[in-house]
């Protein structure tokens, strides 16, 4: 789904495209603590941009600066070409969906949603029409008279979304939008959010610590670490081509090895890792000094398990299965290599019968394609 959208339009690839939101060298300090460190970002119209990172990485601070609740210590924020420096939150063309939803507990669903429009001093009939419209879109039309405490978590989330969307903001900020929902509801809501976004054409900036949420929602992801942007890219880029060791480790599960560059040609590199019996052969060049210390990341699903030793001289390892977690659609194997290193491998359960399956303490060979490993210096 995300891929289709990404192919449809990728404004960030066009150097002439005007960014809708431009964050330029923004820094935010709280006393000595640097929450956001010189971040620059360009977000384009109609995107769902996810800021992904662990707690304390500065993603929420960045979001709050977009909303106007925090003032940047240094740097500039432009929305639709307009400098936001001196514009208070109540005059910004931005609305936010809070993590706690922050619904007004003394107001009904209708009043909550109408609140923003009342501030614009719209005529009552128009308010009624627009509130009705947006409540229809989030499927809350029947609950207009309820108070927030009479709603379930999922319903509150919809009301919060409707309240933020009803003002037709240029930019919608979502702070951990799905955090409080259970798994089934999350999956459902994720797709609903994307549908609503496509329907209304609003630009979304989503803050989340949940990479699954970021992967499904985002057109692009900005991975944050210690107040800095570690990498910006589409979900596929972030997952398949992590730029730094941090991103490789943070996104999804991964087997990381430390190695040394032994062969660096324009079309391939060879890396020798202490934990692996054979060199790692990667089918693209790398610009690194000879004998550089590298990290090698191999995703668990890109490794295949075999009983016989692979014929190739590169890209294999040997180990014993220590743990098996059967997940239904796939199984996770924890394999201890001869070097003592634990490696995680996932295999799709394509065959139904258990006869051929690997078992505990089986000796197996691990193999992977030359295109699978990611190597880097950073």
């Amino acid at each position: 789904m995300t891929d289709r959208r990404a192919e449809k339009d990728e404004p960030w690839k066009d150097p002439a495209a005007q960014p809708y939101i431009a964050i330029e060298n923004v820094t935010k300090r709280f006393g000595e603590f640097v929450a956001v460190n010189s971040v620059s970002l360009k977000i384009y119209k109609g995107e769902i941009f996810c800021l992904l990172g662990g707690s304390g990485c500065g993603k929420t601070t960045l979001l709050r600066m977009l909303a106007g609740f925090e003032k940047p210590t240094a740097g500039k924020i432009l929305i639709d070409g307009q400098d936001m420096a001196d514009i208070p939150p109540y005059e910004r063309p931005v609305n936010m969906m809070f993590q706690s939803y922050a619904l007004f507990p003394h107001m009904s669903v209708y009043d909550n949603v109408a609140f923003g429009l009342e501030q614009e001093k719209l005529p009552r009939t128009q308010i009624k029409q627009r509130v009705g419209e947006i409540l229809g879109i989030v499927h809350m039309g029947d609950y207009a008279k309820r108070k927030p405490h009479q709603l379930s978590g999922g319903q509150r989330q919809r009301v919060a979304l409707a309240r933020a969307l009803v003002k037709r903001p240029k930019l919608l900020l979502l702070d951990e939008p799905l955090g409080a929902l259970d798994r089934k509801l999350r999956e459902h809501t994720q797709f609903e959010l994307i549908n609503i976004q496509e329907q209304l054409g609003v630009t979304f900036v989503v803050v989340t610590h949940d990479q699954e949420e970021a992967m499904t929602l985002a057109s692009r992801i900005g991975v944050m670490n210690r107040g800095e942007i570690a990498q910006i890219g589409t979900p596929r880029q972030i997952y398949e081509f992590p730029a730094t060791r941090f991103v490789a480790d943070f996104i999804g599960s991964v087997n990381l090895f430390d190695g040394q560059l032994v062969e660096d040609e324009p079309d391939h590199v060879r890396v020798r890792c202490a934990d692996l019996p054979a060199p790692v052969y990667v089918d693209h060049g790398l610009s690194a000094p000879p004998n550089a210390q590298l990290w090698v990341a191999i995703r668990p699903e890109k490794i295949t398990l075999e009983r016989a030793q692979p014929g190739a001289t590169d890209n294999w390892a040997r180990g014993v299965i220590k743990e098996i977690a059967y997940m239904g659609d796939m199984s996770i194997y924890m394999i201890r290599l001869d070097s003592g290193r634990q490696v995680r491998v996932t295999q799709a359960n394509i065959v139904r019968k258990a006869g051929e399956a690997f078992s505990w303490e089986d000796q197996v060979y691990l193999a992977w394609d030359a295109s699978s490993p990611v190597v880097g210096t950073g």
Partner: protein
Amino acid sequence: MSRQGRLAIFERYAQRWGPFWNLFYRFGPPRWSLLLLQNGWGRNLVIGVPYLWLTLFFLIPFVIVLKISFSEIRIAMPPYAPLWEWVGDTAISIKLNFANYRYLFSDSLYVSSYLYSMQVAAISTFFCLLLGYPMAYGIARASPAARNLCLMLIILPFWTSFLLRVYAWIGLLKNNGVINNVLMALGIVDQPITMMQTDFAVYIGIVYSYLPFMILPLYTNLEKHDPTLLEAAADLGAKPAKAFFRVTLPLSMPGIFAGCLLVFIPAVGEYVIPSLLGRTDQLMIGRVLSDEFFANRDWPVAGAVAILMLLMLVVPIMLFQHFQGRELRKPS
């Protein structure tokens, strides 16, 4: 202690002490505590203590006052006729005397005292709210350290005698008191402003004395407010003042209600402050009550004054709570 643990002790002692232990364990103190726990008696006991207290020291005295208010005055000890008397050996004659109540409405002194008390209490409550709300709001928004200091300062006056503090106001307000002396020394006024024995002095005294009772419940309420609600209001386009009136104020209504009750109710019956600072031509109902009781020794009329005051305070509050109660009790 687990059930098994108890059984183990029981058996160990049963072997040594035989039937005595058996009886002790089955019907003695160990079983009592168990009964208390199992039948929820412990909870009833805890709830029962305040009920007992209120019955002994509020309900029974109230009934006695009610009884006296229906009796006739008599020059005797006690100074009122009994409510019921034996007629012969087999009949009781109960005589309910409503004259005391009718008397309250026939003499304009009482009606005007009631109205004046209500007026003073209402105006004082209003000013307490006007002063107390910003203070409570400020404290609730302050840093934890400053918050504790401020709360301490609010409570600090209670460490001095209430009477002493009211007397101190006399020293400030009287014609050759501190305020007038300063004003005259600065040449702002030529003659001292008469502040003593005025409504103004009573308002000052009541607002000063009861302000903590307004601030504390308001603070308790405001401190619990979720600051993200105000951010949400700002985000939706409400300027700070608008956000306050649409979000903070409605959500603090329970605190306002509690604070106003805590100020208004004692202010209506206030005795010391109007006696020391207030007018002499217009009495408050607390003063009337005490005069009836001590000066006139008319206990029945004093009882009627007290009962009527209670009704005037309690009935509107009960009605209000009946209608508001459902709203306030809702979980949020």
